[in-house]
């Protein structure tokens, strides 16, 4: 049971100090999670901390490869409503 950081990571450091297992480390070209140390925060927190703070949709996957913060989850705008929201904001 472990999470994985993928190439859309922007190396913003937000997750590193939050990990209760110190499983996240700086690497090139992007940060990585040590799968042996990661517990997905079970027993420590209700939400995996890296997932709860990551600002990039899709940058952290679960062990099945599913995005923990799927498209639209952080902006609050689902992909099918993107154009509509853009039109509204552009008109300001």
């Amino acid at each position, binding site marked *: 049971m472990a999470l994985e950081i993928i190439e859309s990571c*922007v*190396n*913003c*450091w*937000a997750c*590193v*100090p*939050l990990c209760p297992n110190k499983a996240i480390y700086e690497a090139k070209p992007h940060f990585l999670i040590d799968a042996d140390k990661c517990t997905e925060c079970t027993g420590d*927190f*209700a*939400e995996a*901390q890296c997932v*709860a*703070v990551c*600002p*990039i949709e899709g940058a952290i996957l679960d062990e099945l490869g599913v995005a923990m913060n799927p498209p639209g989850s*952080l*902006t*609050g705008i689902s992909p099918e409503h993107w154009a509509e*929201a*853009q039109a509204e*904001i*552009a*008109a*300001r």
Partner: protein
Amino acid sequence: MDLPVITPEAPKAGGCSAGSCGSTADQMGDMSAEIRAKVQDHPCYSEDAHHYFARMHVAVAPTCNIQCHYCNRKYDCANESRPGVVSEVLTPSQAVKKTLAVAATIPQMTVLGIAGPGDPLANPERTFETFRELALKAPDIKLCVSTNGLALPANVDELAKYNIEHVTITINCVDPDVGAKIYPWIFWQNRRVYGREAAAILIEQQQKGLEMLVARGILVKVNSVLIPGVNDEHLKEVSKIVKAKGAFLHNVMPLIAEAEHGTFYGLMCQRSPTGEELKQLQDACEGDMNMMRHCRQCRADAVGLLGEDRGDEFTMEKVEAMEIDYEAAMAVRAELRARVTAELEAKRQKAHAAKSAPAVQVIQFQPRAAKPAGRPVLMAVAAKGGLVAIHFGHAREFLIYEASAAGAKFVGHRKADAYCSGDETCGEGESVLGRTIRALQGCEVVLCARIGIEPWGNLEAAGIQPNGEHAMEPIEEAVMAVWNEMLVAGKLDARSLAKSA
């Protein structure tokens, strides 16, 4: 008999220090001696000081605990100048080394700030270790911090420990419904909170933090990002509230939202305010609050005077190679600070004396009925070191002054691309010139050291009078000389006001 009163805004007894001239520097007259002492060599808190004193930011705080729609967390870019952008994140010990190297090389550097690239208080260990070391090793440097405020109440006591005299809080709203359009989420108590609920928590913490800082005698500046259609009207209320709670200065900054920055607002085509919209809002808030007009929206690793960045001279590689004798540097720094402070004081006295002079001269030209004596005029100045000193085509920014019977008042600056930077780029000159002219919207005069024939014609066609007759003169004298000429020529009477409106 009644004498013609020609300066309705004229300084009362006590001259400009009575507080009606408007700019931060002039309003220093209203401050207690204690506050004046705290801001007189801080370039971000005193408009006067920023011509003489420099600041630097050390990027020790990468982590952030909120998401703002105007920020892209992929911050590593050397080519952009805006908050939150840095080239290298430093460890606290590297930051201390860099600070000492800069302080020894640039003795005007009086202030060390931590402003990101994330939020300093979301990285408390790194931020406070830096402050702790610097308080010991460089007691002559003022420390300050700029935060989104979410973690402020939890850290106020720690901040007070290091003798931090200045804190900036970015407050864009006091209404969670407005906040929900700016902040999609925050990280709070180990979970992600979204939308209105997130904004409500953030606002509560910001306001609580502001109150706690004021209670401890720490000077608070409030930064607000002006986002058209989101918080433009609302910022007037923000200004009133933060002033009532004891914030000392309000800095309303224009939103930066270019698509290529990859921010949410940039990608969604949220527009930025025009220079005129920004000024109107600053003017509207000014009745209630001391407004900062000279902010250059610098990077989280900026080094030098506001508006210039010498960061390239102090990469960690170069800093590691420097040998610094800080004891010796401190003596040089103290001497320079004393000299500049005296110079500033003399300049302030002289400026006040000069400002009352035109009012007296004006009397002679004014027929009795002509009241008020000439409308205010906005002028753009290509300036350096307090003088009209830059060629129009080389100016990267223009300082904007409002000239009126009450004197020349600094009201902001407008960015421009230097369109004439050499042969290879001159092909694009025209479109850049067009953009510059648009940026100067609302100004009637542009003062510069020199100007070419082509831009002269284009400016005139756009209703902006170029003026190169005051090269190397002090800005305020030049601005008032031009205004007085316009007044004498009858360009500032009520009829011309109606025409220009």
